[in-house]
């Protein structure tokens, strides 16, 4: 049986760990609230741009644009959004597993795909496996602004336009609720499924529909990616919050069971001492 001091040490260290996890839980909770607010602030922009894009792309039949039409696929790009660090339960591994397995399944040779990694965990994962990471951003803030990722997103969309790859898929954790996040695959480019629930408006174009699509479609694609990032950030904070909460709960349970064995050991020691004293006194009589 472990000595009294050993158990005491274990209790102290577990208590300290639980303080840290508790603090991280609270930090994630506040980050989560803000991330949710950011996601909400983004909604009007996304709705509007979707509505206008749909109106133009679906409304005028003669408006064509390279970003709207599928072309023979020689190279596929996978954009994977992960967190900057772990300690978020299965958050990173879920999304990485799906992306990794899909790539393995779909492609035989390394020339057929490229990877774009948003977040350090994803970058390291794909780098280690020597999969073509052509673009990456690390050090994404907990509350990213559009300006933080604008350059990379812009490059991604331009690469598609230049023919560096022919389709773009996005993998990220979609936020369902504070305790549920689903790994999602979404095709971003080409923009083949622009759907809208609103009524289509017919617009005058100044100067022409094509000119407008030139500006609008990249902006739309970029905001799709940014939207996914915000979604993923909200999921990340929620995942970290619940991971840290269960860590804290587990620590509490551990401390309870350690305390129990500590008290038992102490009681055993006392009983033993008393028996010894009584035994000693009896021997003197």
């Amino acid at each position: 049986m472990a000595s009294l001091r050993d158990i005491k040490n274990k209790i102290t260290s577990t208590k300290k760990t639980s303080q840290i996890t508790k603090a991280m839980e609270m930090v994630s909770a506040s980050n989560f609230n803000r991330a949710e607010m950011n996601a909400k602030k983004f909604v009007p922009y996304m709705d509007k741009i979707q509505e206008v894009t749909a109106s133009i792309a679906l409304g005028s039949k003669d408006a064509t644009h390279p970003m709207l039409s599928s072309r023979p696929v020689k190279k596929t790009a996978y954009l994977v959004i992960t967190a900057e660090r772990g300690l978020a339960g299965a958050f990173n591994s879920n999304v990485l597993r799906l992306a990794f397995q899909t790539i393995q399944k779909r492609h035989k040779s390394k020339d057929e795909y490229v990877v774009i990694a948003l977040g350090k965990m994803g970058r390291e994962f794909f780098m280690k496996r020597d999969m073509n990471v052509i673009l990456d951003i690390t050090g994404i803030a907990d509350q990213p602004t559009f300006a933080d990722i604008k350059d990379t997103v812009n490059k991604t969309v331009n690469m598609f336009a230049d023919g560096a790859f022919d389709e773009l898929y996005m993998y990220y954790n979609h936020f369902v609720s504070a305790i549920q996040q689903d790994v999602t695959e979404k095709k971003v480019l080409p923009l083949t499924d622009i759907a809208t629930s609103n009524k289509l408006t017919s617009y005058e174009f100044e100067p022409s529909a094509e000119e407008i699509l030139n500006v609008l479609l990249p902006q739309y694609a970029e905001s799709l990616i940014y939207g996914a990032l915000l979604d993923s950030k909200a999921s990340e904070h929620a995942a970290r919050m619940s991971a840290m909460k269960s860590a804290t709960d587990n620590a509490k349970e551990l401390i309870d069971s350690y305390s129990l064995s500590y008290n038992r050991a102490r009681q055993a020691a006392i009983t033993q001492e008393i028996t010894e004293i009584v035994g000693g006194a009896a021997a003197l009589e």
Partner: protein
Amino acid sequence: MKTIKVSVVTPDGPVYESDVEMVSTKAESGELGILPGHIPMVAPLQIGAVRLKTQGKTDIVAVSGGFVEVRPDKVSILAQSAEQADEIDVDRALRAKERAEKRLNDQKRESVDFKRAELALQRALNRINVSERQF
């Protein structure tokens, strides 16, 4: 006077929302003025200022490109970044301007980076001008 609802939205949230009498801005095809009751229209914008007139006052918002969507009762400006004149971080814009100018001197004229630096310079100058209300 008749007014029209205007909102300037960016991915980071709405920047300006109000009822105004007139919106004027620079579209790719030239200066554009919008009054209430305008026909539905979409036009891409240049990097520049949006002027919003209400009751003799003019509010100015700096926008970095994007486009404007006009409906008879509502004007929406969707830009990747936009700031109201008094919210512009002038120091940051000045730093960005210097950075862009330096890059323009280093790069070859044809390179992609040159184009990007040029745009960055335009955005910085636009912010500075709007914050000083000169345009």
